[in-house]
């Protein structure tokens, strides 16, 4: 671990978390700004702080609501930090937490809010991919991230030999977990395996239930210093390490990305996450893995070494292994984008923190290391490892 890693590890913590309800897309009566403010106020209440004291704002994925405007609406006493993480897709979800932590760890702000809000009424359809589907794609009928991720997943299945059952297991685990989460869109709607198998094709090899679907909703989390976190009412979820970005020959290349069937978490990035936290992959208790689509989520778990490459992926990617409380690799314990709700992965941050607090709807007993993975097969990817005070 470098001296910079040591300075960053555990220097900050998430102290407030909130999601608004996950409204069916196009049905929210509030604008994305109103939903965002609702989430921020709820996160402040969760943390037990006055929202006027939030002094930094971070979002990602071309969020329509600029941090300064959100801060002005909140009547912030002073705004000291305002950042948008570049890169389409969900890669910014963990990177935004990392950016907030960097702001706090370096003393440039004290209470930074990470947020993301989507309301179809003002953000439009597919707000997650705005500006990323240029003519060399859309001229050929490729309009949606589903098709990009289908192309990459197809090669992962056909050439690497990852079995399609790995994707199904991930989706089944998500729906299973959602049955214990009253806030999840799939709550009370378990997924019959036969319905998964027989669902309509979206873009082969992805069927309907392999795909996340947008909601009108927002989420917010608050990041502050470790010292301040210990004074506040919630159990701190410390940020142990964070990584973001893109490897060689990756990003906006019209399918010329070098490690094509990877999720984009290249070996140097993965090594840096573990090195920064002083943790080995086998020690992680629970993983929230961004599933824009099931295939890229499987690729993420392979990139991080939780799941073997190729045909052997099917050995680990089994429903029993993926579920809390006792699976060997519990994933997406609130239901994830696919079954809890989609605000560009924001719910995954909230759930990663709940696992550290011990308040997940599907709690992994004594979870002390909780990993968040964002953005698979997108131009930018990122990860954040949260820890409890037990691992500091």
């Amino acid at each position, binding site marked *: 671990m470098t001296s910079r890693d040591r300075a960053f590890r555990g220097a900050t913590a998430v102290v407030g978390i909130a999601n608004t309800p996950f409204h069916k897309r196009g049905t929210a009566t509030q604008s994305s700004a109103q939903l965002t403010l609702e989430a921020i106020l709820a996160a402040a209440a969760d943390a037990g702080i006055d929202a006027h004291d939030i002094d930094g704002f971070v979002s990602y994925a071309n969020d329509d609501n600029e941090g300064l405007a959100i801060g002005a609406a909140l009547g912030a006493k002073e705004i000291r930090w305002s950042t948008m993480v570049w890169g389409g897709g969900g890669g910014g979800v963990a990177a935004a937490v990392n950016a907030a932590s960097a702001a706090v760890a370096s003393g440039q702000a004290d209470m930074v809010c990470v947020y993301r809000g989507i309301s179809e009424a003002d953000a439009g359809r597919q707000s997650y991919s705005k500006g990323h589907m*240029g*003519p*060399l*794609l*859309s*001229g*050929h*009928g*490729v*309009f*949606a991230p*589903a*098709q990009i991720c*289908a*192309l*990459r997943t*197809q*090669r992962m299945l*056909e*050439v690497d030999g990852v079995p399609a059952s790995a994707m199904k297991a991930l989706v089944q685990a998500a729906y299973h977990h959602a049955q214990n989460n009253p806030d999840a869109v799939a709550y009370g709607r378990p997924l019959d395996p036969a319905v998964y198998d027989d*669902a*309509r*094709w*979206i*873009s*082969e*090899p992805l069927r309907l239930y392999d795909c996340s679907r947008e909601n009108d909703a927002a989420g917010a989390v608050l990041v502050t210093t470790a010292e301040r976190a210990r004074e506040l009412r919630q159990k701190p979820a410390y940020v142990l390490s964070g990584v973001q970005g893109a490897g060689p020959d990756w990003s*906006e*290349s*019209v*399918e*010329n990305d070098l490690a*094509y069937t990877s999720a984009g978490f290249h070996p140097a990035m993965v090594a840096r996450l573990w090195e920064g936290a002083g943790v080995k992959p086998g020690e992680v208790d629970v993983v929230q893995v961004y599933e824009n689509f099931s295939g890229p989520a499987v690729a993420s778990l392979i990139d991080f070494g939780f799941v073997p490459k190729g045909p052997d992926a099917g050995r680990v990617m089994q429903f029993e292994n993926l579920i809390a409380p006792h699976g060997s690799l519990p994933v997406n314990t609130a239901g994830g984008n696919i079954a809890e709700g989609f605000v560009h992965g924001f719910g995954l941050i909230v759930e990663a923190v709940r696992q550290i607090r011990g308040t997940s709807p599907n709690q992994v007993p004594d979870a002390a290391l909780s990993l968040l993975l964002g953005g698979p097969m997108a131009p930018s990817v990122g990860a954040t490892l949260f820890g409890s005070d037990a691992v500091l």
Partner: protein
Amino acid sequence: MTAKEFPGVPADLAEVVERHGHAVAAGDNATVLADFRPDRVGQLLASARPPEGMHSAELLDVEPGPDGLFSAFIRYTGTGGEAVFRSRWIQLDGTWLVTQVRNVPDTPPRTSMAHPSDDGLDAPHWEGLRRGELRMQHCPRCDRWTWSPRPICPGCHATDLEWPVVDPVGRIYSWTRTWQPFSPEVTGHLPYVVVVVELPGAGNRRILGVLLDGDGADVRIGAEVKGEIEPAADPEGYPLLRWRLV
């Protein structure tokens, strides 16, 4: 009305299909929707494109199709021409329902996005297509092929990049068959196959395009394909590079 008979096709299905065609032509939406699998009504409605001013239907054929489905071919005629739909039927709980539908023959989608990007970076590629050539970005200084095009060479940072002609012959690197109508422009062309093609003539850079006749094709990664330049629909438009299995 006496239903036609078709070899290997249950008589009750032939009857249902005949009635379905007339309901479609008559704009009897309640009947048409009741014939669709309920979990895919939206996708089915936006998959096929009927002729303008549709007024009549003629059942051409029903035959046993793939995966235990039956394929029905119905010609719809309107004031603006005609269209043949191939609907695929499945029996669920004793009821025959449409589970897929498309226009035949299989034609590739043409979208309003077939033009140079706003920054003009790929303009030499599109202009090349107008002359019947595939042109891609190459750096003469370090011999690096770059795709998609960049403002400078990522290898040696040269700014004077060239656009040589590339032989449009390669191998399928990956593919997807898209069924979901992600844009109204693809209605009438669904499903269609998009291939990513690795080009030995361009340093194995990969280019993307629609595979012609891809609906029923046995598409495999590694298969050899050849490019064909499809002329623009109008003089202002740009041609498109399409692919065909060799």
